[in-house]
């Protein structure tokens, strides 16, 4: 860790300054994650409600959010468990749906090669569509500016929003309707768009790349489930994209 940054110039106490920096980075991450926190919470509440209504005990509902931590697959699992499917199918379907994180993690970990492996192991648990998208757009000029504490701030905020939202939904499943997350689901799409547009303004070819990928995903969705459609569209779209986007 290169904690010897500009702080040390004015502050001869290296140790305390590095703590200050770490805290500032962590808080910066929490602040950055706010759109994800706001986006996750109502969806997590919906999951808590649906899971409870399916008959899954509250403890296991919350445990799933903290252990699996992958939205779409949890809804699917609650659905399957509700239908009485109690076995390997649920685990296998989860694997299929969540495999897209492998591709995302490959790209993100390539970008974060400057961080020690011991820190990247726990951080990798926090990779979701949303944290990946947010961190990928961070520090485009110099990825080395991204610290583990910043990433931890982003990921822990998102993680607890998901876990605590699930708990609240499970607790209030008798009172609140499952449709609570429906209107809010546009929020995460809006965040994706908000992350994409600045890059498109810099280089319109990135917009073409994203559009091709979206159209591919639409086509793959006809033949594959949504998890594989995203994997295939991302792989093929980014491959085509390397020929479209010049420079760098």
């Amino acid at each position, binding site marked *: 860790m290169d904690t010897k940054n500009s702080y040390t110039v004015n502050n001869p106490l290296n140790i305390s300054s590095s703590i200050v920096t770490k805290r500032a980075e962590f808080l910066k991450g929490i602040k950055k994650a*706010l759109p994800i926190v706001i986006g996750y919470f109502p969806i997590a509440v919906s999951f808590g409600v649906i899971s409870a209504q399916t008959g899954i005990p509250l403890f296991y509902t919350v445990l799933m959010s903290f252990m699996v931590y992958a939205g779409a697959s949890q809804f699917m699992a609650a659905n399957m468990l509700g239908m009485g499917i109690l076995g390997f199918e649920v685990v296998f379907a989860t694997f299929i749906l969540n495999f897209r994180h492998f591709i995302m993690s490959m790209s993100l970990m390539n970008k974060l090669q400057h961080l020690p492996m011991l820190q990247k192991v726990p951080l990798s648990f926090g990779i979701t569509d949303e944290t990946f998208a947010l961190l990928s757009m961070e520090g485009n000029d110099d990825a080395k500016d991204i610290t583990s504490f910043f990433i931890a701030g982003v990921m822990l905020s998102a993680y607890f929003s998901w876990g605590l939202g699930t708990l609240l939904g499970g607790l209030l499943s008798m009172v609140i309707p499952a449709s609570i997350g429906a209107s809010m689901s546009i929020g995460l799409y809006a965040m994706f768009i908000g992350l994409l547009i*600045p890059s498109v303004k810099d280089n319109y070819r990135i917009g073409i790349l994203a559009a*091709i990928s*979206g159209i591919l995903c639409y086509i793959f969705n006809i033949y594959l489930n949504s998890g594989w459609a*995203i994997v295939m569209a991302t*792989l093929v779209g980014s491959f085509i994209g390397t020929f479209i986007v010049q420079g760098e």
Partner: protein
Amino acid sequence: MQLFFIILGMAIVTFIPRLLPVFIMNNLKLPAWGNKWLKAIPYAALGALIFPGILTVEANLPIVGLLGGLAAILLASLKLQIIYIVFGSIGTVMLLKFFMLQ
């Protein structure tokens, strides 16, 4: 107890794909085209995550999600912070649903 093992299995098969690249990408010097491909992945992933998923915001009326996305594009073009883009787009969708779904 069976439920616990299903959740544990789900947790393991979800974590492994997230974790493996930490080791694969450790001090790996990729050829230029490999780097280029990995750098294009976030933009391709964003495209695939946005479309066609955004059409399902209101399952019976895909136009609602599209217009919510259009609002997000307009707000993003104004260089607003992401949080305001999110709120603006949620507000747009709520209004649309209020008027279109009686």
